[in-house]
Every structure is written in C-alpha cells, then in structure tokens.
C-alpha cells in the first residue's frame, strides 16, 4: 500500500530525513518511535504534503501512485489521513460544516455522489458514538476551546468519517491522560480492517499498549535504524533510546 524508498527531505535548507525506507501492507499497524528531533513529525508532514518541506531525493508510492506528486487534498482523496499532533483551531467554522465539506469533497474526488442530509447525519451519529462525542461539541467552532483530549478525539472522529486506507497518527497520545488515550486508541482499533493500515508515530510505548503494532521502527537522526515487532517498543520503554545510540556507535566502531 505504501512504499517509501530512500526518502530525503528537509526544511529551510536543513536536512532532516536522510534516507527512509519503509513498506506498509494492508491490514498492518506500524509504529515509528524515536527520540525528539529524530524526524518523526517531519516524516508525517512530508507524507501528508505539508507545503513547507522540500523533498531532495527518494520516492513514495501509495497504492501505485506517486504520492509526492499529489496535492494534500488529492492525497486525502486517495485515502491518506494525517491525525495532527497540534490540530488547528478555526473560529467561525463548525466541526459539522467542516466535516460535511470534507466528506463530500473526498467523495467527489472518488467520483461518488455527495451524501444526502439523512445519510450524512446517520453516519455522523454513528461515528460520534464511536468516539464518545456529544453533538454540542460538533456545533462549536472547529477545535476552538477544545481540551487536548477533545482535539485528538475530534481527529479520530474525522478519520472515522473519511475512512482512509492509511491513517498516520502523529503523536496522537501526546498530552493525553490515560482515559483519553483509551478512547482514541479504541476508536482507531474499531476502524481497523484487513484493507486499511495505520502508521502510529509516538514517543512512548503507552499508546501501543492499546494499539498493538505488527512492526515497530526506531527513527534516529533521519534514518530508520532498527525494526522489530512489538517487543522492541517494550525494550525501548525499559532501556530508553540511549541503548540504540550506543548500539549504533558500536556498529560504527566495528565497521
């Protein structure tokens, strides 16, 4: 579904990603972990098409298409979703109006008819229940005055509404208490199927207790330096990122 090859990218002349290789297949959950400044959020941003970044080398193929050649809106249309680390507050635009526009634009992109009011409401009710959200929250301005937990729940609610093939969760657990993490992770879990995939970017193991990954990758200094299964996440939690660093140093010394 997603194939990243030798991806190199940066911002304002600074190189951050120094050659990423990663393949994600339908049905899989991948986790990317790593210390601050390793390039985790840059990877998420580059995949979603944030305009500030420059790609200097490499390719990203998403369902057979050249992802890097698509506008952010076209990537969403193709089925890519980014849950923002810092969801943006937009005064004057209600969540309902926003998500209705988004759903119908994505449908338009996919050559589907716009949802009628009844089907839209039905779908919205269902997804609200999934995320334990109440109507008043959706009638408010998008994310405005929302707590950290509410913002992240709203992100996963949007994911549920847009039904992406690949969901990238950028530090969705950061700043959340344990109840909020549970709600968010349960939401994601219920949306999982054999046809879609999740890429969870996280600093801590906590989220992965709920969202059990098939693969764990360690991103360090712009490269994936170690990959493994969920046990790797536990090891990282226990030993910290320093053990990776010392391992790398040893490897360098040997070579």
């Amino acid at each position, binding site marked *: 579904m997603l194939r990243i090859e030798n991806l190199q990218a940066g911002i304002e002349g600074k190189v951050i990603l120094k050659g990423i290789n990663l393949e994600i297949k339908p049905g899989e959950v991948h986790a990317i972990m790593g210390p601050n400044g390793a390039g985790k959020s840059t990877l998420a941003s580059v995949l*979603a*098409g*944030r*305009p500030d970044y420059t790609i200097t080398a490499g390719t990203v193929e998403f369902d057979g298409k050249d992802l890097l050649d698509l*506008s*952010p*809106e076209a*990537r*969403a*249309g193709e089925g890519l*979703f*980014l849950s*923002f680390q810092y*969801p*943006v507050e*937009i*005064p*004057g*635009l209600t969540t309902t*109006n*926003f*998500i209705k*526009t*988004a759903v119908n*634009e*994505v449908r338009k*992109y996919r050559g589907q008819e716009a949802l009628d009011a009844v089907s839209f409401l039905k779908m919205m009710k269902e997804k609200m229940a999934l995320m334990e959200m109440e109507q008043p929250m959706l009638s408010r*301005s998008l994310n405005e005055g929302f707590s950290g937990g509410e913002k992240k729940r709203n992100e996963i609610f*949007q994911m549920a509404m*847009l039904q992406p093939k690949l969901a990238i969760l950028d530090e969705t657990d950061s700043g959340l208490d344990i109840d909020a993490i549970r709600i968010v992770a349960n939401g994601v879990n219920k949306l999982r199927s054999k046809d879609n995939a999740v890429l969870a970017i996280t600093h801590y193991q906590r989220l992965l207790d709920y969202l059990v990954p098939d693969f764990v990758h360690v991103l360090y200094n712009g490269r994936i330096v170690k990959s493994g299964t969920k046990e790797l996440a536990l090891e990282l939690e226990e030993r910290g990122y320093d053990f990776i660093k010392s391992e790398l140093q040893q490897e360098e010394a040997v070579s």
Partner: protein
Amino acid sequence: MNNTTYFQEQFDKLQQADNSKGLTAVRKEAFRDFNRMGIPTTRNEEWKYTRISSLFNKEYQLAAVNTALTAADINAFRLPGYETANELVFINGIYSPAFSVVRSKGITVQPLEEAAENEYKAIVAEHFNHSKDYVEDGINALNTSFIHGGIFVHVQQKQVVEHPVYIYNITDARTTPVLSQPRSLVHMGVQSQVQITETYATIGNTESITNQVMEIMVEQDAILSYYKIQNDASHASQVSTTHIRQTGKSVVNTVTISLNGSIVRNNLHAVLEAPYAEAHLYGLYFQQGNSHIDNHTVVDNAVPNCLSNELYKGILDDNATGVFNGKVFVRKDAQKTNAFQSNKNILLSDAASVNTKPQLEIFADDVKCSHGCTVGSLDEEALFYLRSRGIPYKAAMALLLQGFAMDILEKIQAPAIRAHVEELIIQRLTTV
C-alpha cells in the same frame, strides 16, 4: 477648493427654489462653513489615507428633479422581506414619497422642513445637525448646504415597530454624474424599538457620489438595530455619516457591511449621553479590485457607566485598500466606562493594504478600555489542515474567510438580512 463657482451657482439656485423658512438659514450657515473648510484633502489628519478631493474635479448634477426611474428599476435592489417592510426610497438624495411605503403604525415620515416647524420643532432644533461638531471638514457642511428633500422619521414612544425599515439610497447616474446628498433625522421615543437597514445603489455608468448624513436620536430605554449594506457599483463613491446620539439609557447595535464601491468612507458616531447607555459597533469589509474602504468611528463617553463594544473585520484582495480609525473619547466625568475596540484584517494579495489606527482619549481615571488591531494573511497551517482533509485550496480558503467573517454576521439579528448578507459573502468568496 474645487468647483467653487459651480457650487455657488447651484447653491443660489436652491436657495431661491426652496425657500422654506426653517432651512434657508441653516443652508446659508453651512455653505459658509463649506467654503471655509472645503473638500478635505489628505493634509487633513482625518482624511490622511482617503483621497476624495479628485472626485470633486468634475461638475455633478445636484438634486436631480426629474429622473425616469420606475418601480421596476428599484425592484432590482429591494431587500428580502420588503413585502412587509417599511420602505423609504431616496432618489438622487431626494426622498420619494411615491416609491416609499410606510406600513407600521408608530412610525411617521415627514419632510424635514415641515418637522422643523410643527410639533417636532423642539426635537429638530436640538438634534438636527448635531453631527457637525464631530466632523471637522467641508463634506458634512456640503450636505447641509444642499439640504433638500430630507426627512424626519419619528418612532413613537412605547412602540415596537413590527416591520423593519429599509432605506434605499438610489442614484440615477445614467445620463450625467450625480452628487446625491440624502439627509435624515430619526427620533426614537422612549421605550421604542426599531430595526433599520440601509443600502445604496447606483444605476448607470457615470461616476457618482453619495454624500449622506443621517442623525439618529435614541431616547431612554429605546433599542435600535441599524444595518448598513454597501455593495454599490465599482464606479460609485460615497461618504456616509451616521450620527447616533443616545440621550437616555438605551441600546444601539450597528453592523456595517461594505462589499463594493470606488471610494467608501463611513463616519459612524455613537454619542453616549446618559449613564448605562450601550453601543455595539460591528463592521465587515471585503473589498476587491481597486476599491477603497474607510471606516472612521467615534464613541464619545460623556457620562459614567456606559459600555461600548467595537469589532471591525476586513478582508482585502487585489489592489483594495482599507482604513480603520477608531476614536474613543472618555470625558472627565465618564468614570466606570467600559470601552472595547478591535480591528482585524486579512490581506489576500501583496498589493492590498490597510491602515488601522486606534485612538483612545481618556480623561477619566476609573475606566476599562482596550483596543487592538491585527493585519495578516490567511493562516497557512489552517489552510493545510483543511486541505489534508480533502478540501481543495480554493474551497479551504473560502471556508476560512467565511469563518473569519462569521462573528460579525452573527451580530445581524434580522434573519432575512443576515441570510442576504451571507449570500453576498458566499458569492464573493467564489471570486477570490
């Protein structure tokens, strides 16, 4: 001073033709003021960023007596809900009883010169031309110099006027450039309530000017909602002075929506003369092309315990230019004044610009006053957020701008007018 002899000729003509005794003396004095001050230039601090002098380099037809306008011409400009509204129509600055309809009891409309002589004499004497103390330029005096066909609107005490009042300022500029100078004085009696919406329309392609003065006096416990919609032709300019004097504890809500015109200058004054009087001044301007919008507001707190709340928001595209100047006076005795002011702007192009200036003059020491202004471009992060959800660039931009405008639109409490303005904004958004 431009055009001195032309104005003098026209003035003499009017003085002879309309010699109603209440007004000839007023006009004479005003014309003297006009000649002394002239059309303001950019050297006048209040007109620093708005250049209107060049507009007066040509001869305008003043007070067209006979235009061939028909009801059908006016239909094009009627506001939604007009079927049940009180409609007051000015053609080239002259009130037209034939095109106007007054439906509500509790509201009467009569020629200004008659009111100056009849039972309203005292009110007219006290409140008419009060605005001149707040604008030190010849443009206000020019309106007064040529007062003709103005109206006095009386809202009876204890009357909640059930139908809204729609005022159409129509300029027929099909054959020659016109200077329209509508003039009105509105008196709201105690405990009365009325909703007024004003709009401006120029028919024809010659460059025309509307120089309007409206004075409104609001008595104890009265509630005024006043909406102004400016979406005139791109070759039409206007100076619109709305002077509201609150002589009793009363509530005034104004929303000024400016969407088009060549040069548009608004002077909006709220003079709070009674404790606990409340004035809310809201504005939204959304200009494109070469249009220029200037909102000058004055809130004058003369007595203690008044409240004013002011929020103006602007979107400027293409080569459009904007000016916001918000003056707040808090006089020595006006303790416990609450006065808030904010002006926020979004520039959509590199060539668009805005000059914004809060101006607080506070002489009391126990007050709560705040002001602030921002000028920026569209939030890139917000744009990316919407696009990442599949919303194309243009549509995302439109949603953000609509959201930006929303808190002003929400202040329009008349559903039909609000829907109308929202529709105009949505149309405009398809063109950015």
